[in-house]
C-alpha cells in the first residue's frame, strides 16, 4: 500500500485525525482510496450510510482519474471550521474536460459508460466544485458535513 497517512496530537491532547493522500495509478488504488475515506469518515463519526456515500464518491472520482487521466491522486482530510465534515480532493494533470456543463449532465460519457459518475457524485455530496482546463488537468473538491 503506497498511501500515506498520519495522525497528530493537539496541545490539549485531543486526538486529531490527519489528511491522507492516495496516488491513483492502477485499479487497486481505487479500493485503497475509498478505504482511507471510509476510515476517516468513521473516525469523524459519520453514520455508516454517510460513510458508504463518501466511499462511493471517492470510488467514482478515482475511477475517472484512472480512465481519463491515467494517474492522479485522492486527498481526504477532516474539515473543522465551525462544523465538522470531510473534504475530498481528486486531482490529476490529465487532458482536462472541454465542456464541464456537458460532462455534468446525466448520461453524458465519452467512454461509452453510464455518465453517472460526476452528476451522481454531486448529488451525494454537500459541496462539489470541479475545475478543469484542457491540457492542464482536473480537480474536483467535494465536502460532506456531519448532520
Amino acid at each position, binding site marked *: 500500500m503506497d498511501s500515506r497517512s498520519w495522525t497528530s496530537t493537539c496541545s490539549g491532547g485531543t486526538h486529531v485525525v490527519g489528511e491522507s493522500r492516495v496516488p491513483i495509478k492502477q485499479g487497486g488504488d481505487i479500493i485503497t482510496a475509498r478505504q482511507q475515506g471510509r476510515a476517516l469518515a468513521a473516525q469523524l463519526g459519520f453514520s455508516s450510510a454517510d460513510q458508504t456515500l463518501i466511499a462511493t464518491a471517492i470510488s*467514482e472520482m478515482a475511477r475517472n482519474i484512472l480512465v481519463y487521466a491515467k494517474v492522479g491522486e485522492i486527498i481526504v482530510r477532516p474539515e473543522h471550521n465551525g462544523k465538522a465534515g470531510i473534504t475530498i480532493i481528486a486531482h490529476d494533470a490529465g487532458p482536462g474536460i472541454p465542456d464541464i456543463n456537458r460532462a455534468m449532465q446525466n448520461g453524458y460519457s465519452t467512454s461509452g459508460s453510464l455518465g453517472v459518475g460526476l452528476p451522481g457524485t454531486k448529488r451525494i455530496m454537500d459541496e462539489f466544485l470541479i475545475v478543469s482546463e484542457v491540457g492542464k488537468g482536473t480537480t474536483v473538491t467535494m465536502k460532506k458535513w456531519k448532520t
Partner: protein
Amino acid sequence: MRVPILKQGSYLIASIQDALSDEDLAQLQQELVARVGQARTRGVIIDVTALDVMDSFACRTLRDLAHTITLRGAETVIVGIQPDVAFALVRLGLSLSGAQTALDLEDGLALLDQHLQRGNTRGR
C-alpha cells in the same frame, strides 16, 4: 481466482469476498459466462453481501453480467445488496435494471427453484 464459484446442482453460486478490483470483476464475468456453458447451468447467483461500495462501474458490470448469462440461457439473481449500498445506488441514480435481486442467498435459491419448477411443469 478472487471469487470462488461453487456448483450446486444446476446452479452456480459466486460469492464476492471483499472489495474487488475492476480486473477481478472483469475476470469473474469471463469465468462465469464460460462455466454456464460447461456445466449445464440453469441459474446463477451472485452474492454481493461482502461488497461495501458499489459504484457505477461495479453496477454496470453486474448488470452486463446478468444480461450476458441470460443470453447464455441461465437465470441470474444478485443477492445480498447491503442497506447502505442500496441507499447509495439510489442516491447516485443507478439501477440494476433488468437484473433480478433477492434479499440473501436463501431467497435467491428459492426464487430460482420457483422459476425452474414453473418451467418444468410447463414442459411436461
